[in-house]
């Protein structure tokens, strides 16, 4: 089973840049692994850390959050706020030793179809190394 295993990765993509970047990758027929499930969000700043935890809880093996490059935010500064928030989350997960490599962040602009495909490839690769998610996945066991 281990050999067949393909990770499921939830990607929160900002509507203005990364989603368009993913679109461009598609239009340009740039290949990238089919492991991601895209959720379009208005801005990377709108991604609550709980979304990331929830994705992992519900069985995603990895999470990718991608937004506009610093300075390019459609809402001027949403991605700067996001950067602070995700920095704290990233550091915390790293410190706790849980799943921090399952959670990846990137800036991908609307013209970076190539970069988007790279980011997905790298993310999939990292998550594959880690194997199926465990620590944050919801569990349920009968007590007695």
């Amino acid at each position: 089973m281990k050999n067949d295993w393909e990770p499921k990765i939830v990607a929160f993509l900002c509507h203005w840049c990364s989603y368009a970047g993913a679109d461009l990758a598609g239009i340009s027929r740039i290949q990238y692994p089919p492991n991601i499930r895209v959720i379009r969000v208005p801005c990377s700043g709108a991604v609550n850390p709980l979304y990331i935890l929830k994705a992992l809880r519900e069985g995603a093996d990895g999470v990718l959050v991608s937004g506009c490059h610093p300075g390019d935010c459609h809402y001027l500064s949403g991605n700067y706020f996001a950067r602070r928030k995700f920095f704290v989350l990233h550091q915390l997960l790293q410190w706790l030793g849980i799943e921090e490599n399952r959670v990846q962040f990137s800036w991908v602009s609307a013209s970076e179809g190539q970069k988007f495909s790279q980011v997905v490839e790298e993310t999939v690769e990292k998550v594959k190394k880690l194997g199926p998610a465990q620590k944050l996945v919801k569990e349920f066991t009968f007590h007695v």
Partner: protein
Amino acid sequence: MSKGLVTKEKWWKWLEDKKDRLFLSERAQKRYGSWFPPEVKVVKNGKEILLPSGEEMYRYFWAGEEWKVEEGEVNTAPLFFFSLPCEARAIIEITDKVFLHEPIDKNYRQRRKSLSLGILACLQPEPTCFCSLVGGGPFWKNEEALFLVPRKEDIYVEGEGELLSYSEEGGEKVKQEIQTLQKEVESGLPSPLPSYFSQELYQHFEDEEWDDISWHCMNCGACTFLCPTCYCFDLSIEGRLKGFQLRSWDSCMFPKFTLHASFHNPRPTGKERVRQRVMHKFSYFPEREGNFACVGCGVCVEKCPVNWDIREAIERMVEKIDRLRA
């Protein structure tokens, strides 16, 4: 029912084939841990076995064309649970009455049927203990359960079943010793609440004392979750296309417990919720089932983060009731 003494060797012999089916309450372990093998599973109280903090009531799944539901299986291997009298009383006099009462709760009943109780006499009541106030006692026993008084070299046993066949007649001397011990232990404990208390308490529902009594309670669920008698639960689901109906602990201390979908809440503040907890234990439950829904184990008092002490609430209401009766 028979009585007798079981020597240490025979006790261990009796335990031999039960090692992996033994449960011991945390508080009993502190006192009598050395009488049990290291394999014993230590639980907070019987609730952890009979009403686990999460359990599956049934499964549902999308079977391609339609939804299906099916029941899970409850493990019914025979288990032994040794606990202090208060903790056994919580099962026999409170949760059994709720869950074995029609309509019978199947999961509870399955587990309960396979659970044998052993009551270990309580020889060192703690400062937070008040079992005698609510009708129990450190030597409380029940014909359904084994009653044990571990001593230096042997265990005094009352009850029925296999363990008794390991016992020897203790004679008048042992009987005397046990009685003396019981008297000694019981001497420092409070006397029972007056018989009129539960009925009269209800008459004081509207009293302003509740404001003061409830003020410093933070409305967390520590007391209710750790209480051996608090059985209130929530039903919720987990999973979309396949999942289960979950039963999990709930607490009358939480605002959500009674919040309607319309956002109306009949118990909107801490005052109503604290009052509900006290009333349920000391008035409503006695009215329905004939005894308090509190066994006086004192765990809620000991564990409360802000030292909210149910004994003080009770004392205060008893005083008021007695003042008004006089």
